């Protein structure tokens, strides 16, 4: 058997392992093994690539692998779970940049228009993913402001950039010796990545991360076409599909179209004033304890505020005390709670909350009527009944967790400031709602002390 065939078979095995690994991610029981299988697939693919006889110098490869591997390992070990969104954003960007570089390097072996087109595509998608992810990282880690940056004529400027990219791409493909056009594509792609992410605000980040995740896959896919490699195409398109599905889920959970998220910040609609009846009824930690002590069914609804306050561990303590008191405790998790898909689940899992108690929105809502106390921790828009009741509300139609159906609702909140979307929340004024003001971690810590 010749070496070329062995290499190709190695790629086939790798692709099969990726697919099998992703399949096993379908259940929390098998997910960890699935990830391991996927990693073995990657190892097989890398070994197969190294067998290539065209490789005459291993120094560059090994150097790159050692440097990159070390950085990756340290980052993966030290990152705090609350910072996962920024970490994933950064990884997306790195992947995009790698595919873009592969595109540029492939120029030395390229021939034929189709190859040049795919090279341009991998540079374009890779470049956009790279800078877009850096901006997303900046917003998520709050090294730059997390708000939406908009200015007059933004669409016009973006339109010009797109036209510029298209024009220079076409000119380069027609005359590949014209490297100035190539540099123009590179520069404009990088600029475009920044331009598309700056107008998107912090609460819409789950959509952006998912989309950039998809792009990093598509960039790998385009690079696969550029270097004529099957396994890049298969793996890249699996990742691309995964990102697109997550994007769809996030958009649906916010009842907004993708174009609405990408092109119009919430800022433009947040001026709507809704008349809210009723009054705010604060409750003390002590009184909240008496209510909880008598409760037999409690639902906890976490939001981004729980991550900010680092309250997940003390929440778990409260859960244990409640359970010891004969109470059933479940968590209701909205798809867009937090800054990336599934963010809350990971935080709670880290705090040792069993995953079978983490319920999706559609599972917890029908049970809400039998819940004695719903505790809302640092969530706002995802529990806003205005989404169901107030037709003029900007979030009208968005699926929310119906906490108001519970007998009593505790809302843990720092102050009366409105949520990210800047929308009044009628929940706070409902008859059965009690506000527990203060830092979430301290408030729950207070409840824990009352119990013990």
């Amino acid at each position, binding site marked *: 058997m010749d070496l070329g065939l062995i290499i190709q078979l190695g790629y086939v095995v790798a*692709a099969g392992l990726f*697919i099998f690994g*992703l399949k096993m*991610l*379908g259940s*929390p029981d098998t*997910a960890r093994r699935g*990830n391991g299988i996927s*990693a073995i697939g*990657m190892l097989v693919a*890398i070994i197969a690539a190294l067998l290539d006889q*065209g*490789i005459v*110098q291993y120094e*560059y*490869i090994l*150097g*790159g692998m050692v*440097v*990159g*591997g070390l*950085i*990756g390992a340290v980052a*993966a*070990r030290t990152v705090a779970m609350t910072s996962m969104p920024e970490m*994933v954003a950064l990884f997306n960007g790195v*992947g995009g940049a*790698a*595919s873009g570089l592969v595109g*540029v*390097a492939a120029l*030395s*072996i390229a021939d034929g228009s189709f190859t040049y087109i795919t090279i341009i595509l991998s540079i374009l998608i890779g470049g956009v993913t790279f800078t877009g992810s850096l901006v997303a990282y900046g917003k998520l880690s709050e090294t730059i402001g997390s708000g939406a940056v908009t200015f007059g004529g933004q669409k016009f400027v973006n339109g010009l950039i797109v036209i510029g990219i298209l024009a220079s791409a076409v000119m380069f493909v027609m005359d590949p010796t014209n490297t100035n056009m190539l540099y123009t594509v590179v520069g404009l792609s990088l600029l475009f990545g920044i331009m598309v992410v700056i107008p998107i605000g912090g609460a819409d980040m789950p959509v952006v991360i998912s989309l950039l*995740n998809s792009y*990093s*896959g598509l960039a*790998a*896919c385009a*690079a*696969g*076409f550029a*270097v004529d*490699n099957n396994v*890049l195409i298969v793996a890249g*398109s*699996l990742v691309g*599909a*995964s*990102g*697109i*599905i997550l994007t769809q*889920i996030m958009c649906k959970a916010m009842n907004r179209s993708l174009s609405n998220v990408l092109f119009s910040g919430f800022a433009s609609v947040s001026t709507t004033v809704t008349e809210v009846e009723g009054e705010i009824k604060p409750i003390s930690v002590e009184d909240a304890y008496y209510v909880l002590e008598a409760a037999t069914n409690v639902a906890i609804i976490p939001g981004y505020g729980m991550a900010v306050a680092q309250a997940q561990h003390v929440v778990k303590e409260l859960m244990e005390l409640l359970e010891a008191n004969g109470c059933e405790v479940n968590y209701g998790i909205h798809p867009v709670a937090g800054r990336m*898909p*599934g963010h809350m689940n*990971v935080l709670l*899992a880290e705090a040792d909350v*069993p*995953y*079978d108690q983490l319920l*999706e929105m559609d599972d917890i809502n029908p049970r809400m009527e039998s819940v004695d106390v719903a505790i809302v921790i640092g969530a706002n828009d995802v529990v806003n009944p205005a989404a169901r009741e107030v037709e003029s509300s900007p979030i009208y139609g968005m699926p929310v967790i119906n906490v108001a159906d519970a007998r009593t609702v505790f809302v843990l909140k720092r102050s009366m400031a409105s949520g990210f979307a800047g929308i009044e929340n009628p929940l706070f004024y409902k008859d059965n709602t009690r506000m527990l003001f203060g830092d979430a971690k301290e408030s729950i810590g207070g409840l824990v002390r009352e119990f013990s």
Partner: protein
Amino acid sequence: MDVSYLLFILMLSVFLGFELINKVPATLHTPLMSGANAISGITVVGAIALAGSGNADMAQWLGAGAVALASINVVGGYMVTDRMLGFFKKKEG
């Protein structure tokens, strides 16, 4: 390789991807994303061939850079996903 053949592979794997990912529960969306991220580091395979090609200096350096970046993705992605999935436990008893 034949272009139509590559496009054929692309189409099939996109459909397969949609089918597979649709079955992943919301609980696992964060690990799914970081795991997918690690897989997108597959671009390392393309980078390896270019970094070791021995021709054109520029391509080698660019290839080496791509290998480094993609290795961050591969190693970091798989490790952090494993770390996260280790947290997910069923209720005992």
